[in-house]
């Protein structure tokens, strides 16, 4: 009995799993059924109804299914449906502006030219695809725009920080040579902001951020030496940024563990070279005092010494700074040297 069979093999309603036994049963049953209700090789549905087979209940059920209703639509019904289809087809085809028309059913007319589908010209197809491409680009732009806004506030080590640096790289690629030194100085200033923020908010010292700032300043000086950009405008900013870096190094050195401290000393040396370079190559004339003061700061800062809070320089000249404003720079440097 089927029920016994099901019980023996653990097959119960709602508890049948696709396990090996079930597969074996399915295969064996399939062979049985192939004998009782063989697949038709020709047109289906017209094979003679099978008998109940050898009495097996599952085969008997299969035979009963096979002997079920085999209605066929009358010719009138078939024609009626075909008329509906042709009418609908013609309407769709006409709407798309193609050849053919309401009488497409009776006379389909010449086929649409190669390259057309449902009457759409090649240019219509291309235009349709371009609209999709444009939509995707708009979505990408909106996404990247919002991503750049969000990433602008990220700090080194954040998930979105790589996005920020990629955007900066893209800006460097797109900017003209004359504007590149100014952009690099701005990026160096941004690195110092991040370095300071990391110390204040997360008590983390990241010398690599200072290294990046120095690299940007160095590259800006090289471009200025090659005649790109406005030297009068950028020299004071570079000097001021270097000064601020020296101050940050001094403060970070008091917090950093030994392995980072050594890195800070190296960066301080590089920073001194940068200051020497901007004063030596540029328009400023305070070479001696700046280099000696910064050098002394970096090498004499004892670890663990309590230093005054960093005062972020506010004297960074704007691009349209006047010579009078630029003259504040040496004063700031001397102030540090005195401290």
């Amino acid at each position: 009995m089927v029920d016994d069979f099901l019980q023996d093999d653990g097959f119960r309603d709602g508890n049948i799993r696709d396990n090996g036994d079930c597969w074996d049963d399915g295969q064996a049953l399939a062979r049985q059924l192939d004998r009782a209700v063989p697949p038709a090789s020709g047109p289906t549905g017209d094979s003679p109804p099978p008998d109940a087979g050898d009495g097996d209940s599952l085969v008997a059920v299969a035979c009963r299914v096979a002997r079920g209703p085999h209605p066929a639509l009358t010719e009138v019904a078939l024609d009626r449906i075909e008329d509906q289809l042709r009418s609908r087809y013609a309407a769709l085809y006409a709407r798309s502006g193609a050849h053919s028309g309401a009488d497409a059913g009776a006379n389909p007319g010449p086929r649409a030219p190669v390259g057309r589908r449902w009457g759409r010209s090649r240019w219509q197809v291309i235009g349709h695809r371009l609209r999709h491409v444009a939509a995707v680009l708009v979505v990408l732009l909106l996404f990247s725009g919002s991503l750049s806004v969000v990433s602008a506030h990220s700090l080194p080590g954040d998930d979105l920080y790589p996005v920020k640096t990629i955007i900066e790289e893209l800006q460097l690629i797109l900017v003209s040579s004359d504007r590149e030194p100014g952009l690099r100085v701005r990026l160096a200033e941004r690195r110092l902001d991040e370095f300071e923020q990391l110390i204040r908010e997360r008590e983390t010292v990241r010398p690599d951020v200072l290294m990046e700032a120095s690299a940007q300043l160095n590259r800006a000086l090289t471009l200025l030496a090659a005649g790109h950009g406005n030297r009068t405008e950028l020299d004071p900013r570079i000097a001021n940024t270097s000064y601020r870096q020296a101050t940050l190094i001094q403060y970070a050195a008091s917090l950093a563990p030994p392995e980072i401290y050594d890195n800070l000393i190296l960066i301080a040396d590089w920073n001194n070279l940068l200051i020497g370079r901007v004063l030596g190559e540029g328009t400023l004339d305070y070479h001696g005092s700046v280099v000696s003061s910064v050098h002394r700061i970096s090498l004499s800062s004892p670890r663990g010494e309590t230093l005054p809070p960093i005062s972020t320089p506010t004297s960074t000249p704007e691009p349209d700074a006047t010579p009078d404003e630029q003259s504040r720079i040496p004063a700031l440097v001397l102030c540090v040297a005195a401290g």
Partner: protein
Amino acid sequence: MTEPPDHVLIERAQNGDADAMAGLYRRHVAAITRYISYRISEQTVIEDLTAEVFLRMVEGLPGYRITGAPFEAWLYRIAAARVATYYRKRDRYVEEALSERIESRFTLPEADIVQAEEHDELRAALRQLSDEQQTILILRFVERKSHEDVAQLLDKSHRAVATAQHRALKRLARLLGTTKTSRHYIRGKKS
């Protein structure tokens, strides 16, 4: 002269050949009608749903992509969806449909009435199975497709189809009360 295969007719229909579209309809209408008639008894509904299936085919042809999958698989999917929609809507009008059916039986000869009732019983039992199980049984035993063809039409593995068929037949046997004898298929002996 051999009939062009489905994919040729599809391409022609997509390019504006109404006769190719009609050829697709004529080729598959009988199977789709049988499929629907195994799940719905009212003749007028069968005709309406058959028309709906092929109207959907006409509307969907421009976007149809020839991938190598059988064209009829798409038609069966449309038919299954139309049947499901019909039953969802019909639940609100069960009494009306039943009274129409009983009334129409008065005009049939007695033998036909018995057969019609058997068919109704079979449909009612089939309706207890899942859509997929119903489709497998209809394709295999009504359309007489091979297991491989059924698997291809449903985009399933041969193993999955054989297993589902086994389960469907067991459930149907119970629903129809056909549980006289059974074979133990694993060990090859009757229980």
